[in-house]
Every structure is written in C-alpha cells, then in structure tokens.
C-alpha cells in the first residue's frame, strides 16, 4: 500500500514545562517571551507518520501549522523530524487570538483536499486549550472516518487501518477505511529527537506559506471568551491526631 499521502497538524503551543500565567486583563494567558514548542501530541502524530514512511507505507508527509510567523520554527522541527514539506498558514495578531478549532479544522480540511491526502494525523488535543476538537471536526467536515486516541496503528490490506484506542475501562480495536483522520494518544510512540544534521538538511526542504483567504476560509471566532482565570488555589489541609478527631471535623463540615 505504498504511496499514501499523509498530512500532519503541528500546532505551536506554550512549552509543557512553562508555568502558565494569566494576563492581567483576564482575557488570555501570557505568551510573549514565553518558550513555545510543538504540541507534544502532534509530535507523536508526526512520529507515527514518519515511521509509516520508513516502512514505506506513506510516500509523502506534509506538515501544517496555522498561526503566527513563529510557527515556522515549529514546522522546521517537523521537517527535521522527517516531514517532507511544510505549509504555514499565517494568521497574525488579533485574528490569531480569536482563532478557534472550527476555523482551524476548515483550513485543514481544505488543505487535505488540495493535497489529496489519504491519512490526516493530529494530536488528540493541544496542551494549551485542551479543546480536543480539531481531529473530529476535520473528519466530519470531510465526511471521513475517524480513529481518535490511537495508541497503536497497523495497516490491513491496501485501504484499511487497524487502530487500538484507549478508552475508559479498556482498549478498543477498530478498523477504519482510508482516507481517514487519526488522532494520536500519549502511548502511540515515543517521538524521536530532531538531530542536528537533520535540522540542517531540513532547511533545504520545501516550505510554503499561505493565508486563510487563499484557502477561502472564514476564520472569525464563533465563540466568545468571557474571561480567563487561574484555577482556585487549593487550601492548605491539616493533620488530625486520631480517628475521633477526624470524625468530629467531618461532622463539623457536615459531610458525615
């Protein structure tokens, strides 16, 4: 089944190790001067595509990122990890602030059609907004089958994927017919590190840039953010000496 064409969504997010701070106006989180990197689940998705390419199941991998100019760094990493081409849909400033999963999904769906993609890989969710919507929305916009939360992917015949999914209480095995959307869960694989020689080579790989208008997608927000606040601080607990004291305390707060 060689020669499947793959597209991987690579979102640029605040690095997982960074401590998130809410903006003073409570309309978002501080992003300036903050370390960003590729969404870890997208790295896993990309790694899976690269492995499928190494097994000669996939013939070409296109990495896509929608966002500000800095997304180019994310895409360079994707190229260094093994993607063949990169497409950056540039969305800046205000527009990027209001960019929501539906708009991203529409752009991705459009690109998938343009690029004649057979498998679209995404992370199961992005670690910044945790929406967990993009893969599903793309599938429905394209009317394609979807295999979300994949923790193992195998091929069967020339047009079917066997996917193992982690669900509450166990594992689910499903089959999807290609073309399909797959979203990657944590245990699907361990992504490789971009090596320095590959980073250098990646600089020579094709890189194109476009706008949402060129894709003909209206990216105006459909949801309105009311406010963003820090999670409530957990109050300090106290230690009790014995069971009796515990019971008294629990009675005091009226839980027993």
């Amino acid at each position: 089944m060689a020669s499947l064409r793959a597209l991987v969504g690579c979102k640029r997010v605040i690095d997982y190790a960074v401590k998130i701070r809410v903006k003073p106006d409570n309309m978002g989180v501080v992003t300036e001067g903050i370390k960003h990197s590729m969404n870890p689940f997208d790295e896993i998705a990309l790694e899976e595509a690269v492995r499928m390419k190494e097994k000669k199941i996939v013939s070409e991998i296109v990495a896509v990122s929608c966002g500000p100019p800095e997304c180019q760094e994310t895409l360079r990493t994707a190229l260094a990890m093994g993607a063949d081409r990169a497409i950056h849909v540039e969305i800046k400033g205000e527009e990027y602030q209001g960019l929501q999963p539906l708009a991203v999904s529409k752009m991705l769906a459009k690109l998938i059609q343009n690029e004649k993609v057979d498998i679209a890989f995404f992370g199961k969710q992005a670690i910044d907004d945790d929406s967990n919507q993009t893969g599903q929305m793309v599938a429905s916009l394209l009317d394609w089958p979807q295999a979300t939360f994949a923790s193992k992917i195998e091929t069967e015949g020339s047009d079917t994927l066997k996917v193992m999914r982690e669900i509450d209480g166990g594992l689910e095995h499903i089959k999807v017919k290609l073309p399909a959307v797959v979203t990657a869960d944590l245990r699907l694989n361990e992504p490789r590190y971009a090596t320095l020689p590959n980073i250098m080579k990646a600089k020579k790989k094709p890189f194109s840039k476009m706008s949402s208008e060129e894709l003909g997608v209206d990216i105006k927000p459909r949801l309105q953010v009311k406010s963003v606040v820090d999670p409530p601080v957990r109050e300090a607990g106290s230690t009790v000496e014995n069971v009796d004291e515990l019971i008294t305390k629990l009675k005091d707060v009226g839980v027993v």
Partner: protein
Amino acid sequence: MASLLLRSAATLIRPCLQRSNTPVSSVLLSRLYSDKKPPETDSFVMNTFLGRMNTTEVFPYPDVMSTEERENIAMFVDPVNKFFEEVNDAARNDKEETVPPEIMAQLKDMGAFGLQVPTNLKGLGLTNTQYARLTEIIGGYDLGVGIMLGAHQSIGFKGILLFGNEQQKEKYLPMVASGEKIAAYCLTEPTSGSDANSIRSRAVKSDDGKHYVLNGGKIWISNGGIADIFTVFAQTPVLNPATGETKDKVSAFIVERSFPGVTSGPPEKKMGIKASNTAEVHFDNVHVPVENLLGGEGEGFKVAMNILNNGRFGMASALSGTMRKLISRAVDQVSNRVQFGNKLEVYGVVREKLARMTLAHFVTESMAYLLSGNMDSGSVEFQLEAAISKIYGSEAAWMVADECIQLHGGMGFMTECGLERVMRDLRIFRIFEGSNDILRLFISLTGLQFAGKHLRAVQSSIKSGDVNTLFSEGFKRTKRVMGMSTVDSINDQVHHKLATSANQMAQCVGEFGGACDHLLMKYRKNIIHEQFLLQRLANASIDLYGMAAVLSRTSKSLSDGSPSANHELLLATTFCQQANSRIKTNLASLSARFDIELDSSMADIAKATTENGGVVSVHPLRI
C-alpha cells in the same frame, strides 16, 4: 633591565635544582622570544602588563553570528536540551562508569561528535560561539559525557582540524565527525605532566624514510580505551641545519589503533567524570607512516599547546552551564526549605551565598562568550584570556557546587540528591588541560615577558636619546605614582551607567602595569623564582579580565535594552567593586614588606614540613 630575559616556561616549571641537564627548550612562551622589535598585540590581558588598556577585543561585546548561524543554533538548543533532560541519565552513567551504547549511538546521530568539523567533511561546521552554546547544555547535565565528547573533538582530533594537511583532513575528519571512530589526545606520561616538554615517548624515522617507529607509554588518556584515532606527542631527533647538531624535539603524530603495537589499558577508577573512559595507551614499535606527521617535525609542542589553547573556551562555557543548573537547584532549595519558621531564602547568610554563586556564573559566562566571540572574529592572541577563562570557570564552578551542597544541608551530601556527583565531576577541571597553578604562572610570566620586551625597547630608545619616549614613559610613571589612571578614558565604550566601574577598571589597569614594572625592575629575570608573587599577580589579572568581560557584556545589554539589563548592571557593578578591592590588595602585596615577609614565613613553614617528612609540631598532648 636589558638582561631581562625570562627563560622559558620549562625553566619556570622546572626548578633549577632539578634536572639541570635537560635541554631547556622553549615551551609556552617561545613565540614571544624571537623577534627583536617588541611584539604588539590586541590582547586585552597582555596589554595590561604594560598598564595599557587595549579594548579592541573587549568592546563592544562580540556579536559574531550571522543571522543564519543564529537561527541554526537556536534550532539546535531545544533538541539537545531535551535529549539530555529526557534520555541521557547522568546518575546512571556515573554509576555504571560508562556511556551506554544506546546513548553513544544517539549522540552520534545527533551530530555531537563533529560539531566543528566542516560540513563538507561530515561535520556540522559550528563556530566557536555555537559550539560554546551547546557545550553549555551538556555541562548542565552530564560532565562525564561532556569530557568524552570534549576529549574527542576539543583535543582528540582538534590537531587535525587546526594543523592537518588536506589529505589528513579528508582521510580522518569524516570518520571522527560521524563518531564512527573516537579520538583521543595523548600527551601525559608517568614522568611528564605539567612539564609536558619532558615527555619520553620517542619516534625515530626508519632508514627507508617511510615511517617513524614510535615507542612510549601515555597515562590518563581520556577516551584512551575506546579511541581509534590518537593524536600522539613524542620526541623526534631534529637536525639543526645551522649547527649540524641533532636534538630531540617534540613532534605530533596521527596514530590509528589498527597500527600494530598500539594497546590500551583497562579503564581507571576515579573520583569523578566516571562515565568518561580514562586509560593508559602504549606504543610498542608502532610504525607510523610519515604522512601521519601532524604539523612539522619538531613542531609538536606548538601543536599540543595550541590544541589546548583553542579548546579552553569550551570549558568555560560548559562550566557556565553547570553553574546555571546548580543555581536553579539552590534556588529551588532555599525557596522551599523552612527552618526556624522561615524559608531559607530570607536569611542573610543564604543570600550572600546565592549572590556569590550568581556573580561567579555571570563572570564565567561573560568570559566564555567574549572569548569564543573573539576567536570567531579572527583573534589569534588569546592564550591569556583562554587560560583565565579556564581558571576562573573551574574555580567558580567548584565554589558554586560546594555552596549549593551547603545550602542543601545533609540532603546535599546524599547521592540521591545528585549534587555530590557534580562536585566530584568538577574537581578534575582545576587539574587537567593545564593545572590552574601552572596556568597562573603562565599568565604572569607570559605577560611579564611581553612587558619586559617593551621596557627593553624603551630603554634602548632612551639610551639613543629619543626624548619623546623618555617624556611619555616618565609621564606615565609619574601618573601611576600619583595614583591616577594612565589609561585613556574608556567612557565612550562603556555604557554611562557603568562609568564608576569603568573608572575602577581603568585605574586598576594602570596600577597593574605599575606593579609589573616594579616586579621587573626589582627582580629582573629572577622573577621566575618568585611564585608567591606571580600567583598574586595572576589573581589580579584574572579579576581584571573579569571586569572587562562583565563591563562589556553589560554595556551591550544596557544599550540593547535587554530585559535583564538592570540586573546585569547590579551584577557588573558589584563584581567590579569586589574585584577592584581584591586587585588593590593583591597588587599592594607584591611590594609591601609585610606581605613579602609573610611569603618567606610561608616558604619556611613548607620547607620545614618537607624536610621533616610531614607535620613538624609535636602533638599537643605529647602522646
């Protein structure tokens, strides 16, 4: 003064009483001898020995990377960091006393073995500055792996990179750059450590002139047990065409493990950097093809010293990485640990430590990138700056590790905490690649010799009646005596907020020159025997370069509007204030009777102890 000839460093390092029949070949200082005209240089440190402030290579703080080089290194930092954070396990490497094969394999894929080899020879072609930035990451995580990689490329095959001819480069660099073959640098022998010119390994050309027959044994060679390509130093008989005499001189060779007669010993057990292999390497009638002579015959000492000299910046950058990590650990500790009802961070004693650690890091980091930047922009005379950065960095890191453990209390002493390993790993940095003591002597004597030549030149022109020289030198001396700076204002180069510190530096440079002048007049060539003084002079020199480095870096941050500019201002002014007083004390102690007397008491104590075979004083209990 005309007789002021400092003999070579071999003499200084080898007290006259010993081995007086050994040929006194010029060692570290040889280059500075030959020419008649006093040498000129843009080295900041060298010029301070004349009381001159040459800031050509200090201001502005170097910004040497092209946009592309900057972009590349920015891309490299993350994956390398991630690899050391998530994959490599320094504690495990330390415990197993090796770098596991899978880590070696990944480091090879990563390109870590050929960072500075040109891209057409399978390397990454990094500049010194880019290399420094990566060693900083490695230094933060695993000094054992750092030394394995450093022994390979910073010294192991660096000679081929610096002195190799085209054929040697094409033959050897691709295989070492990919990590397919590991390299090592073989200088040290059982009877020859600091006094490297006294090595006994010997290579004699065969009758047919096709190869050298190499015999000898090297000890404590990093990567000695795992390397395939060795840069080996050995004596070769060299004919002096002028005198017709044949003398042994050091030559450098590229030796392959596959040459019959090359063997290596088992890995040495040691205090730290355990992951790095250290072993003996023996050469028993090894036939080394003449094509493998590296640099000219008899040029080996120059090759050996230049390799070390060219690699020292990497040690300073790696150790700034170590310190940065240690400081984070310390901060974590003091902002969480509560004793006597408060977090440790509020206590004065704790703050003093943390501030000292932060300053030490800032100075080392400033030196490291000033030096690598200078090297990238083509500076050739940076040996003193390199020696200072190595000394300062290794001592700063040792202090920072020590205080970090102190702040952790008993926890710091526990293996699990991971700090004791760092401390063990750090100890070697003050010993190898030129012990800090030898490097201090090297700094003082190289500088004094430079100054001595200028003084001689001044003297001869005074004798020949050049009134201008007389006037300007006389004027400088007077100003020094009056305690004024003899250096032109550097205020146009230093940010105005640093004016006070800049003036302190200017004044110190003037006084430093004055002190050198005094030492040369008083001791003449015998200064080489005054190690107590030379050491303090070197300490002053180290502080001076530290001042220059932080003033330059901070000026740049202030004019660029860097987000931490104000904090850097605080660091720079604080360091300059401290350095200023230390320098004054050190310089005063070079001539004050009180200090000279103390020196001789100290010497007497040491002599008595040696003569007695140990502590002289009888036990207070008499039992």
